[in-house]
């Protein structure tokens, strides 16, 4: 098959899912099917009557399909996940529409303000005045319906649902202004002369300000999801795949499992896979926060979205579509951005009852001015009630927490820190102790043989040959190190006759009809092996943090091996960072005391707990919690799962690209402990930001509402103009979003 034919054939695999809201009978199914099949390029149509969807395969733009359906008398819309750019376009269109409304209502408002302030129109009590003000009233009505219509429909709809929201407040506030003013225009004589004011300018300006505020807020909000957009942007659109011997560029959606993909220098890796030919350096910083490009050779894992820096290579696709690490990261960040930490609950509770309470305050304000206010009471009642309704801003309150969480979770993702839930963000900011698992967390987790000491009469190679021939049957991580060491020395292994693990101590095997013991000092003592001078060397090695394995053949000590797990280069620095922020760092390990003590002093932890069996790790966490500490556990997410789940904040580290660690609250994409410190600093900054927002929003509402009600009037004669109230309200929610956006510049 030629390249062109191949790629064309692939295109027909593209299918779209449409939603047709008005499929109501079996007859509709046929009509829609026929309409779609007549569209050139459509291969197959499947109408699902039960869930009112249609699957269409063929390379046809969605708009064409929707048009075809609408021509046959039905309304359809696309069901697929929107791409971020489509979403952005919609938002931009909405923003422009809002801006247009703001400009038009703004111009009309200015005209009305000018004629009102300059006294250009005759007195409302005259016939000419009534005509001219009548025209102004109609203009205002136009602004209210054209630019403010959504507030009125929203208010009405929620009212019917026994609900009230911001729309309710704006609709009543501006509605009252218009109704009262129009009443004055129509029946000027029924209102006393001093109360004969009209408030058309107030109504139009409030609508203008609020629309302007919404537009600004939309803009600012767009920036809060920048982190997600950046992650989505990492995904390349096409992949170069080997098909029947030649390389073809295909859309990324069409990459299949086990496809062999070519990546050239400078290109992005399209999906996850395993390198099969060539080698290169790959920049994974956008995914893991790891700044140094990683060397990749045959057999290594490559991650979709990372950038190939040097050589050209081939890899086999192992994870595609929604299963790639990048897709999972995007999904996780998105979900986490939608969760709320505990601190936001109060604001949620308040905003649930906020609007009805403001309505009640408005009525009480009205009654207070009616009963106790100076004349003209009617004017004061109107001005204060409008101001109360308009200045109250449930938006700022409701936005305070979620908007900061969005930016904070996104910021963390930039540093390779994936936060599962908003709650973890809050708890990570309050930690007092961080417990670090030793192996794989502080250390590399890949033990290597660092000392080989044969007894007299034995050679290093003989010792290693016996040890690795036995250990090749074991799955213990230390055994791996021994086998690896013999491989490096090209030592040939000999098959053994029998193998038996002695739990917690070592192994026993039959090797060329001889009994071989491999294990700790206790195993040797129990079997009466005389260790002689090996004891001294073993003590030295233990002090250096190495694990010692003795080897004996038929009861004679053959020698010992020292194995150690190198400490990650930046562990010490990261631990110091944590300590500087006032957190106590404790190391937890299953190793013996001597080894633990050495590692502990090398990296400078405050305390360590040694010889803890894996199943007891969770118990150690609980013990610390019982002392009133807020405990974080950092571990590998698999062996440490119970401890991670039991801690206040569980960090999974060193899991590579496996992001879906259920037991962890926070997954660190990078192996470095700096991730823990980053996560904690970002959490603290986010929490601080949320607090600022909450204090601001609560403070604003609890100060502004009484002032609007006229509480200062008896002392200072000061009353708040409802127009100012409108501007303040519009500004307050913009301020909250802008403050959250400050977090984008935060550097941990």
């Amino acid at each position: 098959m030629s390249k062109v034919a191949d790629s064309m054939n692939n295109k027909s695999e593209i299918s779209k899912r449409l939603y047709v809201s008005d499929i109501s009978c079996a007859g509709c199914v046929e009509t829609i099917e026929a309409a779609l099949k007549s569209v050139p390029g459509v291969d197959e149509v499947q109408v699902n009557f039960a869930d009112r969807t249609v699957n269409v395969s063929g390379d046809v733009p969605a708009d064409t399909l929707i048009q075809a359906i609408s021509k046959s008398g039905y309304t359809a819309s696309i069901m697929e996940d929107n791409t971020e750019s489509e979403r952005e376009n919609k938002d931009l269109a909405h923003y422009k529409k809002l801006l247009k409304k703001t400009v038009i209502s703004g111009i009309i408002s200015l005209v009305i303000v000018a004629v009102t302030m300059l006294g250009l129109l005759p007195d409302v009590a005259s016939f000419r005045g009534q005509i001219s003000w009548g025209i102004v009233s109609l203009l205002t009505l136009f602004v209210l319906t054209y630019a403010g219509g959504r507030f009125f429909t929203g208010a009405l709809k929620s009212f019917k649902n026994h609900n009230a929201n911001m729309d309710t407040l704006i609709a009543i506030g501006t509605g009252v202004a218009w109704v009262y003013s129009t009443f004055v225009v129509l029946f000027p004589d029924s209102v006393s002369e001093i109360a004969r004011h009209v408030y058309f300018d107030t109504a139009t300006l409030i609508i203008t300000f609020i629309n302007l505020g919404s537009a600004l807020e939309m803009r600012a909000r767009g920036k809060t999801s920048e982190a997600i957009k950046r992650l989505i942007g990492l995904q390349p659109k096409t992949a170069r795949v080997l098909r029947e011997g030649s390389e073809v560029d295909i859309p990324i959606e069409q990459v299949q499992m086990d496809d062999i993909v070519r990546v050239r220098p400078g290109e992005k890796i399209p999906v996850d896979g395993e390198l099969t030919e060539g080698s290169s350096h790959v920049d994974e910083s956008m995914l893991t926060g790891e700044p140094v490009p990683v060397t990749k050779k045959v057999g290594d894992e490559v991650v979709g979205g990372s950038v190939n820096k040097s050589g050209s290579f081939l890899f086999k696709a192992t994870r595609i579509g929604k299963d790639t690490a990048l897709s999972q990261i995007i999904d996780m960040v998105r979900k986490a951005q939608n969760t709320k930490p505990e601190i936001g609950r109060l604001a949620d509770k308040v905003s649930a009852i906020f609007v009805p309470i403001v309505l009640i305050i408005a009525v009480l304000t009205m009654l207070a001015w009616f009963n106790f206010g100076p004349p003209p009471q009617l004017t004061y009642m109107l001005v204060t009630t409008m101001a109360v309704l308009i200045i109250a801003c449930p938006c700022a309150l409701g936005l305070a927490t979620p908007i900061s969480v969005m930016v904070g979770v996104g910021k963390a993702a930039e540093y390779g820190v994936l936060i599962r839930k908003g709650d973890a963000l809050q708890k990570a900011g309050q930690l007092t102790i961080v417990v670090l698992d030793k192996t794989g967390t502080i250390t590399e987790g890949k033990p290597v043989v660092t000392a080989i000491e044969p007894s007299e009469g034995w050679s290093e190679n003989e010792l290693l040959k016996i040890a690795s021939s036995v250990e090749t049957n074991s799955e213990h991580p230390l055994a791996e190190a021994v086998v690896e060491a013999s491989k490096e020395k090209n030592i040939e292994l000999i098959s053994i006759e029998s193998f038996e693990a002695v739990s917690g101590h070592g192994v026993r095997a039959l090797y060329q009809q001889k009994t071989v013991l491999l294990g700790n000092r206790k195993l040797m003592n129990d079997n009466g092996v005389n260790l002689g001078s090996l004891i001294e060397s073993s003590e030295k090695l233990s002090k250096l943090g190495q694990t010692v394995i003795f080897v004996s053949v038929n009861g004679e000590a053959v020698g010992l091996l020292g194995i150690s797990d190198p400490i990650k280069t930046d562990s010490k620095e990261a631990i110091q960072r944590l300590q500087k922020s006032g957190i106590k760092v404790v190391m937890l390990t299953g190793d013996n005391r001597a080894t633990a003590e050495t590692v502990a002093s090398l990296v400078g932890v405050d305390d360590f707990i040694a010889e803890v069996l894996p199943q007891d790790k969770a118990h150690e966490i609980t013990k610390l919690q019982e002392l009133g500490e807020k405990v974080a556990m950092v571990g590998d997410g698999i062996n440490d799962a119970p401890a991670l789940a039991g801690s206040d904040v569980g960090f999974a580290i060193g899991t590579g690209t496996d992001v879906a660690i259920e037991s962890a609250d926070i997954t660190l994409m990078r192996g470095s402990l700096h991730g823990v410190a980053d996560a904690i600093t970002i959490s603290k900054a986010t929490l601080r930001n949320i607090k600022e927002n909450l204090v601001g929003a609560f403070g604003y509402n609890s100060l502004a509402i009484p002032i609007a009600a006229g509480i200062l009037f008896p002392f200072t004669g000061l009353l708040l103009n409802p127009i100012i109230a409108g501007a303040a309200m519009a500004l307050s929610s913009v301020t909250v979003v802008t403050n959250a956006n400050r977090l984008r510049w935060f550097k941990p």
Partner: protein
Amino acid sequence: MEILINLVGLFIIAFIVWWFWIFKKQSEAHVEGNLLDIVVDSGVYEPSVIHVKAGEPVTLRFIRKDSSPCAEKVLFDGLDISADLSVGTPYDLTFTPEKKGEFEFTCQMAMYRGKLIVE
């Protein structure tokens, strides 16, 4: 006259309390055939009280008509479910409610409110 106006004011307050808090009748719906359309428009989810059966998978199809940014997200408190909605693109949220009870679902700011009742 004065007494009358004060009485009217008090009556309005009583009405607010009754309408928004005590007599809270909302549009209710039982999910049939595992699929239910929920329209998101003008500050309201319609229907806003949804009955589902525990242990049975359900698809809530959110149809967002409201272009105000508030309507963008829907969060189910206590269920760890959330979705980003796009104007004009229905979103199928499929899940299996396991726990019985009442769960609120709201927009990000908790202004749009609905209730999921798992029976």
